[in-house]
């Protein structure tokens, strides 16, 4: 059975008839949840936005592209005071000024937001004033108008609330009820991998657990018909295993059983544990780090319940391939 993320044909599914179909009242209090709650929550399509085909790689890349004004020049201040169509984003205490992309409705701000953010823009982090680079100086000489201050063009900013909302709409399945019906078997198969893992938590040492979690992820590459959802479960399981290993390492450290070199955190210890057990027959350190990075991202998205992973579209996969170091 293949998972059908965004092009599921739920209406054509003919699931095996069940006793439930002959008795509608049987599910009126299913798991303590009234049926009308199921009815209300089933459809996410109203939240779904088809206006953007951006991948998250592109969305996150946009965080890097907007210019930062290290000190508000007279022209910028005048624009802000006039309420011009200028988007100002606060990052900590750093003020940033950018021009919105006309084609993207996610960049629209209402006048109240513009005024509020414009007021925020006057809190300028003086640290950035001292960090002007040769790159920014050269760009200033070619593009900045006379009288403006140095501009950093590759500074990072957070997405605005509006952009977050827009991006989140592209994260979710259009029709969660149809998706669940079509893929319940896969959800079950993915989910039972965790109880199996949970059983091993009680019977396996943290070191063995780490090795097994990495190996599980690695082995998924060789399985036919492995779906995105099963991989998502495996990534989250890896983070669970690492957390258990971290707790054990922390306990060990507190009791000073193991001397630790400076710069060796719990994650490093976990990776060393795997490399020590597998030697050159296993994954490389870079591959392990990459697994942990992706797993951490899936772990965040899976909160508070693992089954949340089934909500996310194929487009959510693109989040995992965006390196924070680019």
């Amino acid at each position: 059975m293949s998972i059908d993320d965004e092009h599921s044909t739920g209406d054509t599914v003919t699931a095996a008839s069940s006793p439930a179909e002959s008795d509608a009242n049987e599910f009126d209090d299913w798991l303590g949840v009234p049926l009308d709650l199921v009815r209300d929550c089933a459809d996410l399509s109203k939240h779904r936005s088809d206006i953007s085909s951006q991948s998250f790689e592109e969305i996150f890349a946009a965080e890097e592209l907007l210019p930062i004004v290290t000190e508000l020049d007279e022209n910028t201040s005048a624009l802000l005071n006039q309420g011009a169509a200028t988007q100002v984003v606060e990052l900590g205490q750093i003020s940033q000024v950018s021009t919105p992309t006309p084609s993207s409705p996610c960049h629209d701000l209402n006048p109240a937001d513009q005024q509020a953010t414009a007021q925020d823009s006057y809190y300028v982090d003086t640290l950035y004033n001292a960090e002007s680079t040769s790159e920014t100086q050269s760009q200033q000489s070619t593009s900045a108008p006379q009288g403006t201050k140095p501009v950093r063009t590759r500074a990072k900013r957070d997405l605005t609330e509006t952009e977050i909302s827009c991006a989140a709409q592209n994260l979710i399945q259009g029709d969660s009820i149809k998706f669940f019906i079509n893929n319940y078997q896969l959800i079950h198969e993915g989910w039972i991998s965790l109880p199996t893992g949970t059983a091993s938590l009680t019977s396996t040492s943290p070191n063995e657990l780490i090795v097994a979690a990495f190996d599980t992820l690695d082995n998924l590459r060789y399985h036919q018909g492995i779906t995105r959802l099963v991989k998502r479960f495996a990534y989250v399981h890896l983070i669970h295993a690492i957390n258990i290993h971290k707790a054990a390492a922390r306990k060990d450290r507190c009791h000073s059983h193991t001397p630790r070199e400076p710069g060796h955190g719990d994650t490093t210890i976990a990776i060393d544990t795997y490399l020590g057990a597998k030697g050159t027959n296993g994954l490389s350190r870079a591959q392990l780090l990459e697994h942990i990075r992706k797993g951490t991202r899936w772990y965040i998205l899976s909160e508070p319940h693992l089954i949340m992973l089934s909500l996310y579209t194929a487009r959510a996969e693109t989040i995992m391939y965006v390196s924070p170091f680019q």
Partner: protein
Amino acid sequence: MTTLEALAAEVRQLNPELIHLFEKLSQDVELSMGSNAVHAIPHIQSTIIQVRDALLLHKQHR
């Protein structure tokens, strides 16, 4: 809060009822795990099929 955390929070805000449904499902499954998780597997399957049937029923009546 990182961008990813903000995105996850936004997704949770989109439909609180659905999250509540998932919460009930998760609690039922986690409770069934108990001390011997492997034995909970049939129960998980049964619970998920229950959910599927409830949702199918809803689709037919809609």
